[in-house]
């Protein structure tokens, strides 16, 4: 299986194109997506990608060509126009960004569909190329597509790397950035433009409808694995690239498996896995910690109780499990489990149902009492 993949990579033209293309596109959208997630603008990508559709179709309608550069220019223009409209609505009315995004997303897309259905009825329609932009069709990628998209993506990434610390700063604290003299608003617009480019570049792979997930999911997953900004953006790019390649290759091998949805399903799996099992932040990790803290707390309470009565006349009665039931309000089963946890962790020893502090247990109890 693996050897046939490697063989195909060197000798199968389609395979190589698809794999290389998805690698680049996935990396670009993953990288910029990390910024979108951190800026809490995840849904911006959704609006941009949908808004790109009419630009795409109009570019085809006007030029009559299916040159990727022409189509992408149209898409970028329309996506940018959509964002401009969103900004205008939110700046001058009391309507909130979500409303503006919703309107731009659906209305631009609707207009795009009007154009698309119109184009499809034209006798000259080279419509296959356009349809691929709805749900993505990695298999239709040509080398020239990859070249155009890769250069666009490389340009976007180049600008991002050059302005790395500025972009990081406006993502974390835009007001502070502007007090240091950085033109926050211009940088903001630039970052949105770069995002538009990333979205448009990924369209042929994932499609208009699901492109937003390609931005959001890698960033959201990557955030769980690291607490460092640079690493997070890199991991996000790598997740985008990895999933992009995997999804594209699978979909180009299996009949009737559209690329976009395939990639998104795999991505969602990655996100779920990250949310559950990422060390430090993951849900699984946190529940374990919380459980441990609960036992720790109970065992400490037990240790303090034992310490209080150590050496006193009533010690013999107080160090039994039934005394715990009476004095600490624990039921017998819970008391047993706490005692067992404490024994396992070497805080107390248990002989014939009576509990005695170990030296570690005594230390712990003393520390707790000081706290």
């Amino acid at each position, binding site marked *: 299986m693996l050897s046939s993949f490697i063989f195909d990579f060197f000798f199968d033209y389609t395979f190589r194109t698809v794999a290389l293309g998805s690698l680049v596109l996935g990396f670009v959208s993953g990288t910029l997506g990390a910024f979108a997630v951190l800026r809490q603008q995840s849904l911006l990508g959704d609006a941009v990608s949908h808004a790109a559709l009419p630009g795409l179709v109009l570019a085809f309608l006007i030029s009559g060509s299916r040159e990727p550069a022409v189509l992408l220019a149209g898409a970028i223009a329309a996506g940018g126009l959509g964002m401009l409209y969103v900004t205008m609505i939110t700046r001058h009315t009391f309507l909130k960004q979500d409303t503006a995004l919703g309107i731009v997303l659906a209305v631009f897309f609707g207009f795009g569909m009007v154009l698309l259905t119109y184009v499809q009825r034209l006798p000259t329609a080279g419509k296959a190329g356009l349809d691929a932009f709805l749900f993505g069709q990695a298999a239709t990628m040509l080398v020239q597509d990859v070249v155009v998209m890769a250069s666009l993506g490389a340009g976007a990434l180049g600008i991002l790397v050059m302005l790395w*610390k500025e972009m990081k*700063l406006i993502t974390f*604290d835009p007001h502070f950035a*502007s007090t240091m*003299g950085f033109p926050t608003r211009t940088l903001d617009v630039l970052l949105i433009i770069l995002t538009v480019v990333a979205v448009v570049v990924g369209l042929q792979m994932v499609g208009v409808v699901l492109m937003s997930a390609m931005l959001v999911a890698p960033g959201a997953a990557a955030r769980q694995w690291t*607490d*460092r*900004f640079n690493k997070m953006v890199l991991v996000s790019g790598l997740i985008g690239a990895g999933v992009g390649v995997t999804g594209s290759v699978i979909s180009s091998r299996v009949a009737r498996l559209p690329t976009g949805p395939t990639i998104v399903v795999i991505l969602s799996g990655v996100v779920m896995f990250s949310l559950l099992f990422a060390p430090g932040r993951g849900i699984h990790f946190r529940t374990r910690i919380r459980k441990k803290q609960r036992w720790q707390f109970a065992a400490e309470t037990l240790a303090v109780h034992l310490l209080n009565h150590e050496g006193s006349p009533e010690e013999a009665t107080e160090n039994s499990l039934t005394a715990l039931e009476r004095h600490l309000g624990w039921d017998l089963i819970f008391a047993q489990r706490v005692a067992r946890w404490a024994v396992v962790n070497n805080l107390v020893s248990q002989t014939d149902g009576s509990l005695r502090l170990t030296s570690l247990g005594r230390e712990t109890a003393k520390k707790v009492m000081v706290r």
Partner: protein
Amino acid sequence: MDTSRNALEIMDLTVAYHNKPVLWDVDLSVPEGILLAIVGPNGAGKSTLIKAVLGLVPAAAGQVLVYGKPYPEQRPLVAYVPQRGSVDWDFPTNALDVVMMGLYGKVGWIRRPGKNERKLALDSLHKVSMADFADRQISQLSGGQQQRVFLARALVQDASLYLMDEPFAGVDATTERAIIDLLRELRSAGKTVIVVHHDLQTVTQYFDWMMLLNVRRITSGPVEQVFTEENLHRAYGGKIAFLSSSSSPPAEE
């Protein structure tokens, strides 16, 4: 009028949101080397005043001079400590990195901060007793510790005029102490500090000047002159009857 000796000179500053005035024709002269508290009821425009000075909200009219020149020419002389709630503390970064951001302006475009900046940032964290937390992810810091990180970020800017927006809000006693020590240190180094403050009880202890603000400037000057029942009444209306007993003259430090 010689304004060049003043750290900050605000003249006829008016700020309006949608034509509703938030600040009305505010004048303020801040001499160099003092600790000034801006005090006033909620919605008095205290934070807005600082933001307007920094150009973060547009002024409808008026003028702001920092050491005698318009603010944009004097940016490097001014450091800003925003409200703690203004950023997302779940941002993937650590305390040291946040402090280094204070140097981005000096580092200039495109260049990256390097070893030297790291050292400066660490020194600055040290000054707020946060050096041990340099590598700590910022969401794992307590509110007070986060506030101190913000202070360290302003310190590293090595400015002459410090503007702080509610640095005492919701911090623990240790941090409050640390901030006060820091403010005094800054003052003895000849710096000027302007602090938006919400706690009338501590004004007289912590600050040497105060400004009472309620949309317009009620009055400003040395605390012992300004902190009078009558002035407070003018700023707060009838809402501070409880204070009349505590309006003692400021304690000498």
